[in-house]
């Protein structure tokens, strides 16, 4: 068995020129929001780091995370799979099945103990001895524990692995349980969303390969670089919110003008994700741009927060909802003053909300 080769080796062997390689590094740097100073650092990392084996397991899920992953435009999914990582087990895409698939898993664990990344899509159900999800005749939770034991780090893809998602919505009949409540002795990076944005998924992997360390995580274990701000903070329709210009009914004149969807239940004000900046499918759009409010799919327990069409109610304690109506009415008159006051209040209250809500979520 040959030693693990470096990412740079692989790229060069594939006929990629040094010049193209450096261009790739600089694109990676800008994709990660890093300045030009980081380009040589990325290049150095790529030249010296081995291709990291990845084991990708699937519990109770709908495979939307895998589907999202293959939508990645920069880097392309084919380049990730052929050149950046070695995807040694993934039951959705691998050629082998049954015993040969299980052998591939065992072989990878044995050969790369402590050096592989475990990517988890979906979650284990714990009711019925775990037999609501069976792999190789056994409960999925056993495969998860087994693969986790020698993993270097774990990526919890999507809302299922991070928080439980739809099968864990009340009453959670299978007791679907997020990964961090089953595996407690490994570093876990949560990449929530239903699904996460493709370039966020490949961005997280690329970051880990490039810098050989976990990304900076917030208190919930999410990469701060992609989940540090609310959709509302960077929404291109935010000026309409601040000006009190709201969609009042589906397909009304205001909807056709692209006004704010807050009154239609948009969860952008309470949802931490990169949708309004990175956007979806190579930046083509994101839910709000296509006329529907955010449903908050990257937040813990978003299925159980009332209808997707109810206004965000836990903002009322800060007076935002009241303000929205008042400013809406006042807008025709003194827009300028209302905007300034309202914007300031929102910013202040947002900061309060962030600091107040996070510790409680940690305790879950």
């Amino acid at each position, binding site marked *: 068995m*040959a030693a*693990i080769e470096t990412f740079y080796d692989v790229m060069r062997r*594939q006929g990629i020129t040094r010049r193209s390689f450096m261009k790739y590094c600089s694109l990676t740097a800008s994709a990660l929001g890093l300045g030009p100073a980081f380009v040589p650092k990325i290049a150095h990392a790529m030249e010296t780091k081995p291709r990291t*084996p990845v084991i990708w397991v*699937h519990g109770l*899920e*709908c*495979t*939307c995370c895998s589907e999202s992953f*293959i939508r990645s435009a920069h880097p392309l*999914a*084919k380049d990730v*799979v*052929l050149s950046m990582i070695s*995807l*040694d087990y993934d*039951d*959705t*895409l*691998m*050629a*082998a099945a*049954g*015993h*040969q698939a299980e052998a591939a898993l065992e072989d990878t664990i044995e050969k790369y103990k402590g050096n592989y990344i475990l990517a988890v899509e979906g979650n284990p*159900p714990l009711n*019925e*001895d775990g*037999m*609501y*999800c*069976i*792999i*190789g005749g*056994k*409960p999925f939770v*056993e495969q998860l524990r087994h693969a986790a034991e020698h993993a270097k780090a774990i990526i919890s893809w999507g809302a299922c692995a991070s928080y439980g*998602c*739809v099968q864990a*919505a009340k*009453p959670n*009949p299978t007791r679907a349980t997020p990964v961090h409540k089953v595996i407690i002795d490994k570093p876990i990076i949560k990449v929530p969303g*239903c*699904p996460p944005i493709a370039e966020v998924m490949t961005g997280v992997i690329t970051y880990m390969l490039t810098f050989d360390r976990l990304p900076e995580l917030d208190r919930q274990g999410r990469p701060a670089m992609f989940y540090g701000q609310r959709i509302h903070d960077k929404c291109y*329709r935010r000026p309409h919110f601040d000006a009190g210009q709201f969609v009042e009914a*589906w*397909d009304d004149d205001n909807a*056709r*003008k*692209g006004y704010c969807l807050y009154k239609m239940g948009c969860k952008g004000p309470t949802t931490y994700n990169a949708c309004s900046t990175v956007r979806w*499918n*190579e930046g083509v*759009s*994101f839910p709000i741009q*296509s*006329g529907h409010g955010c*449903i908050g799919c990257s937040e813990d327990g978003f299925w159980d927060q*009332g*209808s*997707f069409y109810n206004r965000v109610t836990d903002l009322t304690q800060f007076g935002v909802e009241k303000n929205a109506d008042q400013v809406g009415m006042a807008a025709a008159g003194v827009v300028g003053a209302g905007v300034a006051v309202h914007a300031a209040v929102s910013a202040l209250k947002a900061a309060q909300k962030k600091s107040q809500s996070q510790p409680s979520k940690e305790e879950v």
Partner: protein
Amino acid sequence: MVVQTPNGFNLDTSGKRIVVDPVTRIEGHMRCEVNVDDEGYIRNAVSTGTMWRGLEVILKGRDPRDAWAFTERICGVCTGTHALTSVRAVEDALGITIPENANSIRNIMQLNLEIHDHIVHFYHLHALDWVNPVNALRADPKATSELQQAVSPSHPLSSPGYFRDVQNRLKQFVESGQLGLFKNGYWDNPAYLLPPEADLMATTHYLEALDLQKEVVKIHTIFGGKNPHPNWLVGGVPCPINVHSTGAVGAINMERLNHVSSIIDKCIEFNKNVYLPDVVAIGGFYKNWLYGGGLSSQSVLAYGDIPENANDFSPEQLHLPRGAIINGDLTTVHDVDVRDPEQIQEFVDHSWYEYAEKGKGLHPWDGETQAKFELGPNLKGTRTNIEEIDEGAKYSWIKAPRWRGNAMEVGPLARYIVGYAKGHEDITEQVTGLLRTMDLPVEALFSTLGRTAARALEAEYCGRLQKHFFDKLVTNIKNGDESTANVAKWDPKTWPKEAKGVGMTEAPRGALGHWVRIKDGRIENYQCVVPTTWNGSPRDSQGNIGAFEASLMNTKMERPEEPVEILRTLHSFDPCLACSTHVMSPDGDELTTVKIR
């Protein structure tokens, strides 16, 4: 001992038992066991759905306008199709009609999914059953280029240099020793029949298709904001149209329409230049491997989809046909009524659920189920370490739906057989054209290969339909209609106290139905019967085997310990296990914890 099933299959369990778990390159989790005789022929087949999520339990007590989002998460591969079925079910229950533009946009999104899903299925889930990427290393790039130009003269990517580059990349990948997804594949199995040049061409298209599919879905992104899992709306579609005035940048405007149009053209090009020619070329080398017909020659079912006009689901108005064929009689296509309690019923005698009355079949509106995980006396292994399952008892998380008591196959092949039998113009033309090109009789349709070919034909047809509905949308806008949503009954106060409805679609994998009961503005009961529930069904109370099981019967395995043939045939259905195995109606004790919000 040989047992004959009522639907005509002779099951013999005396041969060697082969277990495949996990079945890979599918959506979700599945297990398959077969008995193989001394000659290597499969004489008994057992398919087990190995996951359950209980989404209907979770839906109880929720706002019906939210149901599309929950049911959309049944499956992220056929993303959107459950959402569409759900909004149709709720609209049916509440008597909500949708604007013409919403019908066109929904059709474009649904057709877009069919195309995307079929392409990804063929290249990324199914191709490795026919194509050997390792053998591609032996190909002559120049000969590959000639092959490409012969099978598809208008595909621009066909130079010897292009294939040489791909081959080099593949060579270095294989030589690295880190085979990744190709690890432990069955690359020296004699079941692979392609010459190296065809292997190289198809492997190259595996990569091309991977690049293309991320473009295809952008239609979902434009209308629904993201993919996977775009957004939908009861009463229409959420994206407003504004092509003339101030604020158009926040709506479907000229730039958005142009973007959609260019993607539609890309789909048509790819299907014409790559997908269909590949299926014909690859199929040509396997045309003597006509195993896998299963139920397709006797009983197939389609609900129909893609209504030409908004709110009209009568069969003659649907572009994808509706109908049922039983007993192999193609001269009679029965109409299908999903509201009739006598037509569609689900059985659980061999599924991990229980009914109050044993052996009974229940219509989805009256579904009654409780999960019950128990294994039969002939199990080998333990409760949490199943070595060999006992199919004489309960053995799957999938229920057994039946149409008038018959086990049915659904999916692209079922749709195409129904369409062919009904004389559907486009479908008949495609089918006869393909059979002529490949010099095959019509019976060849009833096979694994037929299933795979029907999917490719359907992708091509859906590409044309996508364009049709785009033109229709633009014409309607030109005529002054920009409406996309009907909000007259958006407010729950306008709803009746009690209502029930049903929504139907043709998902990529086949007939999909959602049945909903609404009471006091909340979901009282929600049931889904999905394509893989039909195809992956276990035995029923009469002993009829399901479509997966039937399709594996009497297939010759080159090497029984290497399940190439089993994968090939199972994959031809494009199994979707997360879809099939979430079904449970709300009778369990757990429900006491549901609170009306």
